[in-house]
């Protein structure tokens, strides 16, 4: 096995392991949010949670696959480590971005689901007029 191929394999195993770890964290901790968003409807929360995680996997594995190519020959261990640092660093940043995006989606859904409790009109009326109902009464 050449040093180039081992670089690719190490890159793939680190990226895949990281993606799985982040997705599992999201799956485990996002559930509480979603149950709250769907007002305790656990079946729906689990379903949405699963769909979100599938999307997360698809986007991240898609990125990992596309970013695999190095474009130059790796001939020494130093070069291999440097190449890995760039590639894995990019994967980490994409994962981080996706993770925050997911958090944003969760918090947005949560905010949306809260029906405004405040029933006071925002402004005071200007005047009063008798309505037809008043007249009949």
């Amino acid at each position: 096995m050449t040093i180039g191929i081992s670089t690719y394999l190490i890159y793939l195993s680190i990226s895949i392991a990281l993606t799985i770890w982040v997705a599992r964290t999201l799956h485990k901790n996002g559930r509480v949010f979603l149950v709250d968003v769907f007002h305790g409807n656990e079946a729906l929360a689990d379903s949405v949670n699963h769909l979100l995680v599938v999307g997360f996997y698809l986007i991240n594995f898609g990125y990992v696959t596309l970013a695999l190519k190095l474009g130059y020959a790796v001939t020494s261990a130093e070069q291999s480590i440097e190449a890995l640092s760039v590639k894995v660093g990019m994967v980490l940043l994409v994962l981080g971005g996706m993770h925050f995006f997911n958090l944003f989606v969760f918090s947005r859904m949560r905010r949306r689901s809260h029906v405004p409790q405040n029933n006071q009109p925002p402004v005071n009326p200007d005047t009063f007029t008798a309505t037809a109902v008043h007249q009949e009464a």
Partner: protein
Amino acid sequence: MQALTVLYDPECGLCRRAHEWLAEQAKIIELKFVPCASDEARKRYPQLNHDLTKQDLTVVDDLGWVYFGPKAWLMVLWALARYRDWSYRLAAPELLPTTKRVVSMISQNRYQIGRVAGLTR
């Protein structure tokens, strides 16, 4: 409060477009649309100054409380599920003067805006 009656200007393209938009929105409070200064409006509110309702949007709640101009706009926003939060934000003391200025400006120029936007009949 269960319902708001909106006295709108049927002559203005912008108002008709706004009416169509409002019809599609999810509402917390029912909105009834009555052309301003029409026979129906006069029948419903015999004591209201109907010349005033022709100048600016007017909203009357089911108890008979009347909101004119910018306040009427805020009340309509307040009736919508998606925009109730916004009605409070725009009615906050820091923002209310700006809200009133912008709304009055749009209201006074509603025919021109409607014409420019191609909303004429």
